[in-house]
Each structure stands twice: as structure tokens, then as C-alpha cells.
């Protein structure tokens, strides 16, 4: 970036607001719908101030009904608008599952492109913020398995703004997952102007030789910590990948890295069974079978509901579990 770019230090949630504001200023057809997104500015303040700038015509408090929010957003999207629908928490998206699964994601293919649904669904998600039951679900995999929708997860403020703008510009539905643990955990210098982080492209956060660590969202901090500590204690160096998009996966990035290291540990919050980690194992199996020196390890949430918050830390992967997996893999 040239030094001429004006930047502001922002948290991830501020960068998300910024991304919406940027696009709403440029495009009248971008609108925001959801529960408490208006005067209240969202329960995480992600839409804070937007109603003042854009009025309640474009920042719309809806009734408390997720199927209603998504279903009407589909109609709006088919008819000239680009709605950003906020689910208050990803764990409350389930009542809208039918509308997403049978309509948002299928209307383009159903009508051979006659009708389309340029819809962004934003949802805070993940455990570790001491929220009540259901609020902490990590169900990316429900959507990666759903044909016709892209799944995006930023892990930091810079990516959040760029990926959100890319999602709004995308002609098809995108589910944009916002790890609550990252909302205010760091500040980064964010360009004031519009920029894009391409959907479908991961990032290599750190170069290493011995093993590839693959994660996204709130697990990035966990993985980075593990990578740092394991290098210090064991001299093991890690390639750290932040996938950023879960569908479609960045195959080239993953394959190139594991073909170099011959080893991989995948880390995610969701239960291992049915989790996106398995897709990545398959991808590695498909692309890099002969390069692998040891079995891939997955460090994941358990095959249990995310428990009540007093014990959620024992549900979540942590850097100790990741380090153990690294050691097991390297010493295999």
C-alpha cells in the first residue's frame, strides 16, 4: 500500500461497520435488515450510527423472526436491492434454515439465472465470550455443505472490511461469519477507502518448514500462539494458513503448503464430526497424498453441544492441544 492511503485504527467490529458504511455510501441499493440493528445499533454495535447517516429507510429494525428476515431479504434481493441481513447470533439462524437452504442458495440455479439473490447474511459466532447457550454455536459446516452459497470468515479487522465489501459486491449469496472473540481483540490500521479481499483466497500468515497449521476466525490467535511457542520450545517451524473463505476453499494455498511441509494440523471450534476440517483432510488426500509424512491431525470442538459458559474453555481448542497435535504429527 502506498503511504498516501489514509487509515484508521479499528477493531474488527468497527471495520465491519466501516465496510457497510462504505458500500452504503456508494450504492443506494445496499440496505441493512435485522433485529435491533437500527436505533440500538446492533447488540454488538456493528451497525452503530448507520441509522443516523442512512435513516430507518435503509437500516431496518425487523420483527423478531429469522425466517421472515431472510425470506423477505430474498424478495428484496430478487427485486433490485442488495440486503445485508443480520442474524443476531449464528445460533439463531436455524429458524431461517429453510429459506436459506431451499431458496437463497438455489434461486439462481432454479431459474437458470433469471432471478438472482445478491444477499449477505452477517452473523456473530463462536464460543469464548461467556454467552448463554446456543449463542456460541460454530456451524460453518452447515453452509459449506449447502450448494449455492459462499462462506466467509475473517479473523482480523483488515480482512473483515475487505471481505465484507467483496461479499456485498458478490452477485450471489454469501454468509459472512464474524468471530465474536475477534470483535474487539485487536486493532489494525484500516484504509478509509474501499478495498477488497478476494473471496476464495486464504492467507499465509507465517512461513515455516515443518508443518502446516490451518485455521480461521477465532482459532487464528490460538494457532499463532501455538506456532510461536512450539518454535521457541522445540524449534519446529510452522506454515500458518488463515483460510478466510470456507467455501470455496483455497485449494492451491493448502496444497502448496502441505506439499512443502508434508504435515498438517487443522484447528476449528466446531465438532470434529461433520466439521470443515474433514473437507480439508479430503482436499489434502486428493491433492497431496504422496507428500504426506504423517497423518493429518484435527484439533476441534468435541462432538457435544457447546456447553454452558463456565466450562466452554474446556470445549474450545487451545494452544496446548494444538502444540500436542503438532508434536504428535512431527514425531509420528
Amino acid at each position, binding site marked *: 500500500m502506498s503511504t498516501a492511503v489514509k487509515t484508521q485504527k479499528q477493531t474488527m467490529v468497527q471495520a465491519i461497520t466501516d465496510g457497510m458504511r462504505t458500500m452504503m455510501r456508494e450504492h443506494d441499493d445496499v440496505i441493512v435488515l435485522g433485529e435491533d440493528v437500527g436505533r440500538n445499533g446492533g447488540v454488538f454495535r456493528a451497525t452503530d450510527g448507520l441509522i443516523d447517516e442512512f435513516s430507518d429507510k435503509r437500516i431496518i429494525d425487523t*420483527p423478531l423472526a429469522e425466517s421472515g428476515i431472510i425470506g423477505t431479504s430474498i424478495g*428484496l434481493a430478487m427485486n433490485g436491492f442488495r440486503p445485508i441481513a443480520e442474524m443476531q447470533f449464528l445460533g439463531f439462524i436455524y429458524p431461517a434454515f429453510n429459506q436459506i437452504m*431451499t*431458496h437463497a442458495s438455489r434461486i439462481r440455479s432454479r431459474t437458470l439465472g433469471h432471478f438472482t439473490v445478491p444477499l449477505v447474511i452477517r452473523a456473530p459466532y463462536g464460543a469464548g465470550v461467556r454467552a448463554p447457550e446456543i449463542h456460541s454455536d460454530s456451524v460453518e459446516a452447515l453452509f459449506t455443505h449447502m450448494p449455492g452459497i459462499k462462506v466467509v470468515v475473517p479473523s482480523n479487522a483488515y480482512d473483515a472490511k475487505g471481505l465484507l465489501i467483496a461479499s456485498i459486491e458478490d*452477485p450471489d449469496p454469501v454468509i459472512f461469519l464474524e468471530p465474536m472473540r475477534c470483535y474487539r481483540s485487536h486493532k489494525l490500521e484500516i484504509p478509509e477507502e474501499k478495498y477488497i479481499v478476494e473471496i476464495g483466497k486464504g492467507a499465509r500468515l507465517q512461513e515455516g518448514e515443518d508443518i502446516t497449521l490451518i485455521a480461521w476466525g477465532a482459532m487464528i490467535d490460538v494457532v499463532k500462539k501455538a506456532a510461536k511457542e512450539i518454535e521457541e520450545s522445540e524449534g519446529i517451524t510452522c506454515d500458518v494458513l488463515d483460510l478466510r473463505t470456507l467455501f470455496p476453499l483455497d485449494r492451491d494455498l493448502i496444497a502448496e503448503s502441505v506439499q512443502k511441509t508434508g504435515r498438517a494440523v487443522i484447528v476449528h471450534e466446531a465438532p470434529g464430526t461433520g466439521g470443515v476440517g474433514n473437507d480439508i483432510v479430503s482436499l489434502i488426500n486428493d491433492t497431496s497424498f504422496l507428500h504426506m509424512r504423517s497423518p493429518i491431525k484435527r484439533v476441534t470442538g468435541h462432538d457435544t453441544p457447546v456447553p454452558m459458559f463456565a466450562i466452554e474453555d474446556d470445549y474450545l481448542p487451545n494452544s496446548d492441544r494444538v502444540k500436542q497435535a503438532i508434536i504428535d504429527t512431527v514425531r509420528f
Partner: protein
Amino acid sequence: MDTQFPIKQILNEDGIVVNSEYESEMTESLTKELYTKMLRARLFDKKSVNLQRQGRIGTYVPFEGQEAAQIGSALVLKEGDWMFPTYRDHAATLTYGHSLRNLFLYWKGYPMGCVPPEGKKIFPPAVPIASQLLHATGTAWAEKMKGTDHGSIAYFGDGATSEGDFHEGLNFASVFDVPVVFFNQNNGFAISVPVEKQMKSKTIAQKAVAYDIPGIRLDGNDVFAVYFETREAMKNARNGNGPTLIEAVTYRYGAHTTADDPSKYRDQEESKRRREQTDPLVRIERYMEHKGFWEDSWKAKVENEITVEIEKAVEEMEAFGAAPSTDMFTHVFETPTWTIQEQLDEFEARAKEEV
């Protein structure tokens, strides 16, 4: 409660005008237009049932008996309005300009069957029951935000009123004063379940009370009642007065689908009786006779034209050739993801090998 929502009628079953409010508009030309469309729909329906029996299309959903409800309401729409039908609403979609060929293709399982004519805002049949009420609300809301005077109509059955989306659709539409008409065809059954087991309420119209919007109950086999009441509701919608719930009381003569056997769950004598006594086409024929609009030769000519048109559409359907399997891959996203592109490439490579 059914006394608060009496069934509105304009023509009684003998084709006599029982409510003269709109009599001046019940002209020969409108009457003939309505009749022609009803006849066309009925002949389409009969043809489709036959095509299914012959194995030329797949399972089909007949609508015979519901023509007045669908056509009276659909004729109200103007260019630019949105229509959200179910799988049973081809009389409505044909009236609003859908293509006969594509409807046949739909039942032949062709993707092209879901595509409306260019510029026509007709959504494909909503398969998940009641889901379309929200789309109708959303598209109409968009019209309102754009400041046009267009609106939407959503078709749905008595069974559909039980789904959560029915409720959410009416609630959103009422809260945001959206220009949408919720057009219910109460045909007495959701597959086998009679309306008395679907709900405790005696009418569907009264459900409008929950949303403080108008609820209208009318004789769905009286095409004039349907036409004028729906026109009023759409006018209200266009004028910014928000949604209306209309309950058109009707009956399906046939099976739920060609795979269904209604004798398992209802008295088929009732269906026979209805066909003889309350048929929507017969009623308007009688009216035309009373008014001197009826000529056998006119009917014969119209029927002939329709038959030719339908036969031509059948030919077009069959001339369409094989459905392109690549359709499955090429429209999932505007630009295929690498996964889909790879699957398409493999599919095409296999297809080439097989040749």
C-alpha cells in the same frame, strides 16, 4: 366467527347476480375473457393429466375446479407486478402470461420449466409450502421502496396457513405496509388432511385479525367475486394501504397429484356433486346464457383455438429435446467455483467418452 367473515358472492351457483355492486363492469367482453381463460386452463389441466397417464410427463398436480379462483385473481395483475404461485396454480400463471411449453417442461422435470418468459415476474412454483409468502412480501416491499405502484400476489393453500412462514409473511407485510395480496385457495384439503383438522378456526379470513389487516372470504368458484375483490385488494395495496388476506373457498375435484388416491381419505361422491353443482365454468356459462352472451358456435371456436394452441405447446415441449445436464452446473453461481468447474469438466469429459 364465520358470521364476521361471510362468503362474498356476486354470481350464485345458478349464474344469477346476487350482488349488483359491479354489474356495470360485468360486460360481455370481460365475461368472455374470463371464460376463455378458464376454459384454456381447464383444457391445459386435462391435457396434462393425459400426458402424465401416457408417461410423456412426470407426476402432475391437477387444479380442476379452482380455475375461477386463480384466473379471477391473476387477471387483476398489471405488467410489473410479481406473482408467486404454488405447484397447483398454473391457471394463474397462464393468465399472467407464463408459457404453455415451459409449464409442460416443468412437469417433465426440465430446468427450463422454471423459467418464466422474459420480463415476466413469475416465480417458479414454491415447493416448500408457504415459503413464497415471504418472497412476495420482499419483492413487494422493494417496489414500495422504489416508489412504484407495483405489488405482489402470493398463492397458497389452506394447508399452508399452518406453517410459520405464513405467519411471518403476514406479520412483516402488515408491519411494513407492503403492497401484497395473500391469496388463499381453501380447497378443503392439504393432501388428505381436511381443513377442519388443519385449524380450529372456521375461516381462514379471520386470521387477518392477528395482523390488523383486511381479511376477505369469498366464493372462490365465483370468478366475478374473485376478480373484483382481488382488484380492490390490489388497489389498496398500490395506494399504500398495505396487504390483504383473501380466502377463496373452493374445491379440487381431482387427486392431490396424479400419484395420489383421494378415495383413501374422502368421499368421492362429494367431488362429483361439486363438479355437477358448483363448477366455476358452468356458473359463468349460465350467467352468459342469462345475459345472452352465450353462443355454442363461439364456445366451439374458442375451444378449437385453445386445443390447437395446447397441441402446439405439447409439440414444442417434445421438440425441446433432452434437457441439458450442464444446466445443473452453470447457474449455481454467476461464476462457478473451482469445485463446480472441475465437476463440470469431469462430467463433460465422461459425456465425450460415452459418445
